[in-house]
């Protein structure tokens, strides 16, 4: 599919173009490396109209065609590419905006931000000391400070950088002092949302098993990660959304609305009685405003659900949840949105996990693979890949076992999954189970490379028995 990049003509030369309103609208939504589908989604127009408009914009030079093989839509996180794992070089789109390194960095950090955990964002383990947190923070903040992009036209990417910067600041701020950090850690462990998938429960109970912790332990134990994700992001979003509304200064006079009276007279008039009255009124008004916001979020989320836009619905319902955690419509929507968005988000995580592996960011890669497996619970391939990756990266063996088990459950006739399951058993010290899986795999496909690995591991393990 062709990709389109906005040529970013100057406003003056743009005005010279004979554009119809619809073409202007389409142009406004063309980013770097957008597909026609992206544009259709963001304009709400039908595909044919969008394609016609794009063709005309290309003809007029307002939009450039930037090849069909580019894998990464530059501006969107919620939309994973169909085949995300073709190779690292394809990932580097839109070099006119970000350098390849910055591009990598921005996407890595955005992926970390999705996990909504300050430790993950800074890339440090939970056990990191003050010094390590500081160093990680300084390193990141130097790379994403708006000054680093000064004088460059980042276009729509500018707010993304600003968001990352703000998130890094917030992460450091939350972990800056002992008190604050303790409070944050509490909020992480207190987050016990209902765990929807049985796998997650299995992981939680699998925690603290006899698997020796590796020297560079993953920043998050998987149980915590799964549980904390939506809580912490809800927390974050709530902060972004702002606190409950309060009463703002209206024109203070009884005359018609257009009157303007200075603040000085207002202040002098304000007696203690008036303040008490205001407080009372505020207490009446705040719930009203909150209810209004809640209603609009719910309808927004429901519309997104109806259109099959899971990620968008999820965002709206999470915001709504931060306003009212017990509203039934919100909870229902949230469950539906989570279901709808899970595969999408899972794929995103798989994609970022792979990227993290390329970048040799093992800690990130493990966390992302675990997240991917949790989300894409019904996707055998993701489960299998996560299992293989966790074995390869020496991640949490119980999670690897869970993933491989899930993959086999979904596709019992797959030799690769059987062999992976065998390896995962072996890693957990369950030799008998491993041998059984090896036999099953051999029956299905004796030449499978995973099986060969499993057999090698079995033979090297045997003398220990």
């Amino acid at each position, binding site marked *: 599919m062709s990709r389109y990049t906005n040529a970013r003509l100057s406003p003056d030369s743009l005005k010279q173009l004979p554009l119809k309103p619809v073409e202007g609208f389409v142009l406004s939504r063309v980013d770097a490396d957008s597909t026609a589908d992206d544009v259709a989604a963001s304009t709400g127009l039908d595909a044919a109209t969008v394609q016609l408009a794009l063709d005309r914009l290309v003809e007029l030079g307002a939009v450039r065609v930037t090849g069909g093989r580019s894998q990464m839509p530059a501006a969107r996180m919620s939309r994973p590419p169909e085949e995300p794992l073709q190779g690292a070089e394809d990932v580097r789109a839109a070099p006119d905006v970000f350098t390849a390194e910055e591009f990598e960095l921005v996407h890595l950090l955005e992926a970390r931000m999705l996990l909504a955990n300050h430790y993950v964002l800074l890339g440090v383990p939970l056990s990191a000391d003050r*010094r390590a947190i*500081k*160093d990680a*923070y*300084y*390193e990141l*903040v*130097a*790379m994403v*400070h*708006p*000054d*680093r992009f*000064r*004088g460059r036209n980042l276009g729509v990417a500018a707010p993304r950088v*600003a968001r990352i*910067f*703000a998130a890094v*600041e917030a992460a450091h*701020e939350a972990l*800056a*002092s002992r008190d604050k950090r303790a409070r944050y850690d509490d909020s992480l462990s207190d987050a016990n949302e209902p765990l929807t998938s049985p796998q997650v429960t299995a992981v939680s109970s699998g925690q603290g098993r006899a698997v020796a912790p590796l020297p560079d332990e993953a920043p998050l134990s998987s149980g915590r990660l799964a549980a904390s994700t939506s809580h912490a992001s809800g927390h974050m979003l709530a902060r*972004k*959304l*702002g*606190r*409950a*509304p*309060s*009463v*703002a*200064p*209206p*024109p*203070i006079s009884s005359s018609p*609305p*257009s009157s*303007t009276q200075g*603040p000085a007279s*207002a*202040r002098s008039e*304000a007696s203690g009685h*008036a*303040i008490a009255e*205001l407080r009372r*009124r505020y207490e*009446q*008004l*705040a719930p*009203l*405003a909150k209810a*209004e*916001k809640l209603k*609009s979020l719910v309808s927004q989320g429901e519309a997104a659900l109806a259109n099959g836009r899971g990620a968008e619905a999820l965002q709206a319902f999470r915001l709504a949840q931060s306003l009212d955690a017990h509203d039934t419509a919100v909870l229902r929507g949230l469950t539906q949105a989570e279901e709808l968005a899970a595969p999408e988000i899972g794929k995103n995580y798989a994609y970022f996990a792979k990227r993290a592996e390329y970048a040799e960011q093992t800690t990130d890669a493990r966390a992302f693979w675990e997240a991917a497996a949790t989300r894409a619970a019904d996707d055998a391939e993701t489960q299998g890949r996560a299992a293989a990756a966790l074995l390869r990266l020496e991640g949490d063996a119980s999670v690897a076992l869970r993933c491989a088990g899930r993959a086999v459950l979904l596709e019992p006739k797959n030799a690769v999954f059987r062999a992976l399951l065998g390896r995962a058993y072996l890693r957990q010290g369950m030799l008998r189970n491993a041998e059984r899986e090896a036999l099953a795999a051999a029956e299905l496909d004796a030449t499978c490379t995973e099986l060969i690995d499993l057999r090698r591991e079995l033979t090297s393990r045997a003398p220990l028995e």
Partner: protein
Amino acid sequence: MKRVIGIDLGTSNSCVAVLDGATAQVIGNRGGYKTTPSMVAVTETGRKLVGHIAKRQAITNAENTVYAAKRLIGRKFNSPQVMSAVRHASYRIVEGPHGEARIALRSEILSVPEISALILQELKIVAEDFLGEPVEQAVITVPAYFNDNQRQATKDAGLIAGLDVIRIVNEPTAAAISYGTSQREGTTVAVYDFGGGTFDVSILELGKGGVFKVLGTAGDTFLGGEDVDERLVDWLVAEFEAEHKVDLRSDRMARQRLKDAAEKAKCELSSVSSTELNLPFIISNERGEALHLQRSLSRAKLEELTADLIDRSIDICLDALSDAGLEKGDLDDVLLVGGMTRMPAIQRKITEVFGREPNRSVHPDECVAIGAAMHGASLVGAEKKPLVLLDVTPLSLGIMTHGGGFDELVPANTTVPTSRVKSFTTSRDGQTRMSIIVQQVAKDREGERELLGEFALEGISSKAKGAVVVDVSFAIDANGIVAVEASEQASGKKAAITVEASSGLTKPEIQEMQKSAAHAMDERRHGEAIESERQAAQSLVGEVERLLENLRSSAGDSSVLGATMAGIEAVLSQAKLLTDGRDPSKLKALLPQLERAAQMLRSLGN
């Protein structure tokens, strides 16, 4: 790549630096001084004088010489600080059209940014002369405790001076840059900046990757060397009055002389333990007798007179430290910046309070400009190892709510750039207009809120009270300059709103001032070009006359040379007329003729 200059626009002295190769260096002005007095004067003929030349004539032209204009920048005329300046200043401070302080100089009334622009322009010329190329971009420093109006006004001054101010940086932060690049990572330092007019303290941490993070800042924009001078003047006046029953303050010229002498004595007492103040014929009494002021002043007396000022600065220091969540022992260094820190009492006090000798490795007058130049170079990518500054906003920002309450959106010591959003509702049925009054509050001074600006969101949906939600968003950029926006949530409609500066200049005003400043600069440059031609012509005339004389005495009035000599003499007399006259532009045409004549005479002479 165009170079960026760093300017320390100080209360008493200003300084300009530029990155030269790997290190930044301060550029000396035409007089050879590294710093230029922040003084502007207008002479009887209406000519504007800036810097040393303005300072030299300050005594005889006290009423038309502006000093310490920085204390007035971005302030309202009726603010207590300006009112106190009105009492003490020798020049006239008046109220401007936006309620801001302006300065009356002879027939003109100038805005404070215009005064500052003259100083900036002078420094720009200094830099251009040094670099041999035009300078367009600058980083200008301000006290960390400057508020939005003061920052905005400083930026305006840069604009008027024809500079693109790419960043406003806090002075202590800039000082820390010039100190910090050679320090190890993880150093925590307190910058104690006691300048001419302001006192600032910032606590910084030097992090990995060239990051300078301000952990906390505090200050007083009305505590500085000027106040120390003022104390000395007060003392001298009181002593004089006791002796002669004459109030020296009644005479502007006497006041200016006293101020100069006090400043000089203060500086001397940093290196000697006692000094003499000698001001003969300072005033005459009612019988017309001339009176003289003669006093000796010891360092101990100076310290006694100013002890409370120093104590105040130390208190502010400790406040900043506790705001940053640190203890004295967490500091690796205390950096001294600003001319006042040469005072032994200050160094002693800091050693006493912090239990360590202060660091004096940076030049107290120059390090701010140097740091600004380094940051400027980093911003435009001229520095290989980029610096990243994480500064903080010194004051809490918020809006006034119904009934005069204050709703804080951005607390003090928040890292910038930052943005905050908060929702508000209408408080009356059918309300269609909401006025947003933006205010700032200094720490621990809830009662003294200052108005930053106000605007109204018009045409909001007419609904029951509380049914309309308006989002108010604050954005503070890396300059510490605030932008406020309000939009109605439900309709998504963003009314066109701009914050009207409460005490600044409007855009057209700035443009007008910019034009006239550029014009004045052209005139000045033009005048200088003509002056240099006039000088070239004069020296040629001198040479030709000398050679002609030599030739006459050696060869006599020979008939062969007679015609030539007559021709040369004609050129000479014409040149003399022009160099003495008021129209030197014709000189340009004459210069080649003079040159030819000189050449001919030289060859004949040999």
